[in-house]
């Protein structure tokens, strides 16, 4: 046996170590945010755009929603044909909106910030309060953007303090999908139920004669709290009234009670383990609430005829939230780059390209002219299911701030809904925990920046 080596340290070594740490600490303090009150949104630019010459090269960060990389490349090619002096670099900056947002926020203050970035419904507001994106109204006016042609709800989704902070691009809503073969077996009319009450009547027939679980529900972040807007608003409730959480209202509790009763009392709904769309495509469930962005994929994957319809109405009527992503321009770029980015953004979302993008991906046509144009009319003729999704757009409304504008808002609501759906927790208790957490997060992470 040999002696165990002992670890000793003398005064000189301690001093040397302190010197190294001191030097490193000094380095550490040289970077990072400045101290003080929250920076807040970027001010409206005072740039006189008339004197600005567009930059020769710009960068666009996208995750190519709806596997649209080739579509986006084609639009860039068309833009460069019209504007040969501007090169657009398309960068795959993530697999989804969250990954793009993480990179965009981490890149803040560096030279790696893109000129254009996707800004989803749950992220644009955070970009805005961090001062990372540009208010677009002045630039749009200078470039003579036809903003009046945008679907009003989708365009105004990005409004705060009187400015628009993004332009709608790949926008979606939840949609009701049903298995026509199952419907036929159950002897049901070939349409979606108009109301949840009607679905309650149909569900036993779907289970007995259709031979499948009537309704498949999805769980998980960025999803459960989105489709639940339908049941919540349909009962007359809401997650929040601006910044005040309203999950303790009888309407909100009634919505959660209804959801829980579908699973536990009447046993006509199940929560998918991994992917409710895959379960539906495999014929395990009779119907689901899925994204309109999944329409093309569902139609391709399903081995049966798929029907689509509006989300069922609650006692207080039709209720459908908007979702998906817009495109924003980074504030930390030169006016030349911002102008070039604005020119491309105008081209990207013009009527022709909106129709081209929507017809190839399944996302909503964000312009009225595109919705009613020749390209989309052909699509509706070929896929009538798509027309339903577009028609439902007129009934949509913007989401509650408590979910989409407060950090961790969606996560806390998802946890509450999962407790209700998976553990049969009392809705009032689950919602109370979420409400407290979201209110705290607002105080800590939002109010200082407004």
């Amino acid at each position, binding site marked *: *046996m*040999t002696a*165990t080596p002992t*670890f000793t340290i003398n005064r000189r070594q301690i001093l040397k170590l302190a010197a*190294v*740490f001191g*030097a*490193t*600490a000094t*380095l*550490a*303090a040289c*970077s*990072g*945010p*400045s*101290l*003080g*009150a*929250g*920076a807040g949104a970027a001010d409206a630019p005072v740039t006189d755009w008339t004197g600005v010459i567009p930059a020769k090269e710009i960068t666009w960060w996208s995750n190519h929603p709806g596997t649209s990389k080739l579509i986006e490349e084609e639009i860039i090619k068309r833009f460069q044909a019209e504007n040969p002096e501007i090169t657009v670099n398309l960068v795959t900056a993530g697999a989804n909106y*969250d990954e793009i947002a*993480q990179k*965009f*926020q*981490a890149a*803040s*203050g560096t030279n790696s910030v893109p000129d254009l970035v996707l800004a989803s419904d749950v992220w644009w507001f*955070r*970009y805005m*309060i*961090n*001062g*990372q994106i540009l208010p677009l109204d002045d630039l749009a006016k200078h470039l003579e953007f036809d903003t009046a042609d945008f679907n009003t709800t989708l365009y105004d989704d990005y409004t705060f303090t009187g400015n628009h902070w993004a332009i709608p691009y790949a926008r979606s809503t939840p949609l009701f999908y049903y298995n026509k073969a199952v419907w036929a077996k159950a002897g049901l009319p070939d349409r979606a139920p108009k109301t949840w009450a009607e679905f309650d009547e149909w569900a036993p027939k779907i289970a007995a004669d259709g031979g499948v679980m009537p309704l498949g529900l999805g*769980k*998980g*972040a960025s999803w459960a709290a989105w489709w639940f807007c339908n049941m919540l608003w349909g009962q007359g409730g809401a997650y929040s009234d601006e910044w005040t959480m309203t999950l303790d209202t009888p309407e909100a509790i009634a919505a959660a009670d209804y959801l829980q009763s579908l699973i536990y009392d009447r046993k006509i709904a199940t*929560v998918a*383990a*991994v992917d409710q769309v895959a*379960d539906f495509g*495999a014929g*395990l469930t009779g119907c689901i609430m899925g994204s309109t962005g999944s329409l093309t994929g569902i139609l391709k994957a399903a081995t049966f005829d798929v029907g689509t319809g509006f989300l069922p109405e609650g006692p207080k009527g039709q209720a459908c939230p908007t979702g998906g992503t817009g495109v924003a321009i980074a504030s930390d770029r030169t006016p030349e780059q911002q102008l070039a980015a604005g020119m491309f953004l105008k081209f990207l979302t013009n009527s022709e390209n909106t129709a081209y993008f929507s017809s190839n991906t399944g996302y909503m046509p964000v312009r009225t002219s595109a919705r009613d144009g020749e390209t989309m009319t052909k699509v509706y003729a070929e896929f009538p299911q798509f027309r339903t999704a577009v028609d439902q757009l007129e009934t949509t409304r913007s989401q509650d701030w408590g979910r989409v504008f407060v*950090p*961790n808002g969606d*996560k806390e609501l*998802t*946890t509450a809904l*999962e*407790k209700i759906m*998976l*553990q049969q927790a009392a809705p009032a208790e689950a919602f109370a*925990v979420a409400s407290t957490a979201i209110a705290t*997060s607002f105080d*800590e*992470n939002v109010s*200082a*920046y407004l």
Partner: protein
Amino acid sequence: MPTIEDLHRSTDSAVAVSVSTGVVSPVMPRTFTPRKKKKPWKSWLLFLLFAGPNVALLIVFTYKPLLQSLYYSTLQWNLGSASAIPVGLGNYVTWFDDPGTVRVVTVTLIFTIATVGGGMVIGLLFAVLLNRKLHGRGAARTIVVAPYVLSGVAVGLLWLFVFDPNFGITAALLDAIGVASPPWYNDPHWALVMVIIVYLWKNVGYVALIYLAALQSVPRDLLEAASLDGASPVRAFRNIVLPLLGPTTFFLSITTLLSSLQSFDIIQAMTKGGPLEGTTTMMYQIYQEGFQAGRAGYSSAVATILFAVLLVVTLIQMKYVEKRVHY
């Protein structure tokens, strides 16, 4: 000739005694400390040349981020914002006050104990098995070690399908013996069991590999002598092999513990910390708070706490566990 006791009593003795042999040998008086020779500038230049780049990289990529994280933990800072508000220890107080912290710590403890303890036991068993002269030993070694070199995300995605209660192979196997598939994805406890199984599957090869190398260096004559003295294989393993594996076990206990506490990829690919945050470890919470919620200051505070825990655990291991190790 002085006795051993005399020598021990003498504080400035010029001789020392080897306790094991009793031999007395002259040594330098304790009070004499030779003055260090000043190193010539060439030595410093060489030091800078060889160690400089490494030290610079360590400072830039390890110590600077470490201290930056410590500094950010005292700020209320939204990731991406150009300004932040100093809050002192506020983020730490929030973390300790948060009712969810108990759950996160519990999940972290269960995950760590199961993966470190389970991994070492299973890895050792594999190593013992693979150390025997068996047919197909080479192929078996490759099979055991192969998952370790795979990407964690790829492993997570693969097992995502394996555990699928509707289409997965586990459901099919359980169904064949008349057992229903557990709700791997909808029950927080089963989800934790699932990610532990996958983590073990991926990492047990590493433990087996290191133990196998150590087993092959165990002197055969010791085992033969024990066998001649009538020791059973189990007793020889317990009393000879295990103590000789001490340094390896010590090394593995530190590396697997650090690796387990920093595990992220499998959880991200399979459960994203859910359901009901049932697989949210401290490491995953750092990611969630920092990048999903954008609470960079709070996330840094959790990272600092995790760093402190790792530091303390490693120091305890070095101070107490290492003493029991026979080199």
